[in-house]
């Protein structure tokens, strides 16, 4: 974990109320894409703002390439790309001036990449930021994050307000960046199909708590929804293994749980003298189950 480019360790943060994130811990491996999922208000943006060095954790610590992002300066920020969920680029500034700022501030600024992306997304350098559509404003934010060829890329809802084609192209650009320079990406989004296409690892945040953080394949393989029914001795009241979500119906019990060698649906059905029906869950199902629990 110590060599991970992105580390969040026991982080708690609040804003004049209950904590927005509580004792949050995860790390992102070098050169991987971490899909950071959660409902609105679950704490994703707060976590990304802490990693971008805009706010500080109240407890715990965040590290980007081993440094505290709040205290790093221009030299260390050369390799950090950040795209905010909001349109934070000044409204009156021209697209060309924004790119010039990037070129002037970053030693590793890839002008060819920036120009190519402008052409690809059909963005005119002469247009003012406020004159761009919301989708194009997001794209400019994305270009500003990616053109310095960062080693760590923090993307907060990069695909919001984008059409399907632009979304696909953004994902392709992210993959290309990783292929070219081994960039490590933290991708926060609501669009699960995007995450499913590109993420190596998934973290699901619910009410400030990280419910799961593991490789996508392992997550999909291990979490199951099991319906137990036809109890000969009635549905169990206690002795229920730890589950993400428990729903009791008339003479049936539905559990969303992580299966392991000790708690398979079959062993539980045998223990409770009932039948069981197991359903594999898609990422969207897992997300919904974990978020609602």
């Amino acid at each position: 974990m110590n060599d991970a480019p992105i580390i969040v360790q026991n982080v708690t943060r609040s804003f004049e109320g209950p904590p927005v994130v509580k004792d949050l811990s995860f790390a992102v491996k070098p050169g991987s894409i971490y899909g950071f999922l959660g409902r609105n208000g679950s704490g994703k943006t707060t976590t990304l703002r802490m990693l971008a060095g805009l706010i500080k954790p109240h407890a715990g610590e965040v590290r980007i390439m081993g440094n505290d992002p709040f205290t790093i300066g221009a030299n260390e920020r050369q390799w950090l790309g950040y795209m905010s969920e909001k349109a934070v680029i000044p409204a009156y500034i021209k697209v060309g001036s924004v790119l010039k700022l990037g070129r002037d501030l970053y030693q590793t600024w890839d002008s060819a990449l920036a120009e190519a992306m402008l052409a690809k997304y059909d963005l005119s350098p002469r247009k003012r930021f406020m004159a761009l559509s919301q989708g194009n404003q997001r794209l400019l934010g994305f270009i500003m994050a990616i053109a310095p060829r960062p080693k760590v890329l923090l993307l907060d809802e990069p695909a919001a307000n984008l059409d399907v084609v632009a979304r696909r192209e953004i994902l392709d650009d992210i993959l290309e960046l990783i292929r070219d320079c081994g960039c490590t990406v933290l991708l926060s989004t609501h669009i699960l199909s995007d995450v499913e296409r590109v993420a190596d690892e998934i973290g699901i945040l619910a009410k400030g708590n990280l419910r799961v953080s593991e490789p996508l394949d392992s997550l999909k393989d291990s979490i199951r929804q099991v319906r137990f029914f036809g109890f000969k001795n009635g549905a169990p009241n206690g002795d229920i293994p730890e589950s993400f979500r428990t729903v009791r119906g008339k003479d049936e019990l539905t559990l969303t749980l992580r299966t392991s060698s000790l708690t398979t649906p079959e062993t539980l059905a045998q223990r409770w003298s009932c039948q069981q029906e197991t359903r594999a869950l898609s990422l969207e199902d897992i997300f919904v189950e974990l978020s609602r629990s």
Partner: protein
Amino acid sequence: MNKPKQFWTLLKFLTTINPTIWIMPLAFGVPFYLPLLTSSISKTYHPGFMDLFMNQNLFFVVMFGSIVLAPERFQFGASTLTASYSGTEFILTRAIDRPVLYRAKAAALYFLVLLLPCLAIATALNNPDLIVSEYSKTVQQECLAQVSGSVLLPAPKNRQPSLISIPRGNILVAEWQLGVYLITALLLQVLILILYPFKYARFAFWALFFGLIFIPVLYDIYGPSNFSTNAHLFFAFAAHQVLFWIIFAAAFVLAQLWCERRFDRLEQ
């Protein structure tokens, strides 16, 4: 990137971030740059010390301070235009050093607000001497005692003398304005950075904003009619110019360093 290059890059960016902020200096600077261009308007005579100063234009400093320095969260509403007026979050997440960014922001503010008194000094250099009409005997005596070279001009028969001639008086007034604008800009920065982290900072900031605009005006209107604080301070400035410039310079350096250090530690 070295810090001076970073500073100039950021300053250039900040001063071109929003073209509309150049409208106000152009509008309020008319009385100062027009005489420079036309050499036609005389500024030798003023109808009294009360009207001599640009105090009423302090809102100019406050307005620019709020545009250049106030963070997005001091703004009301969440429109793209309002939220991204100053672009603080965008710039803070680029490859910059926070103290350098703050220095560039402060320089942009000084550049905007000190333009007006600098134009006033340039105008005054063309027309340095001042004749001011002042009927209060106390103020007259204070002026004659403290402003070197000032003389009371003789009045027509049976009339009370009221005209005071001050050699280089227009330059002195413009220099005093430069000092007042500088101190107001410093005060504003310090107050914004003190308020920054507080829960009700937004409300306190706007109360301060309107207070700084209206208090000098209301004081001039409803304050003691025969007493002008600004005139007394101006006389003191005229009598101890070196001391005042040392105080201004010290206040500038200390406030600037404090602001840079505080900004470095503040969350957005």
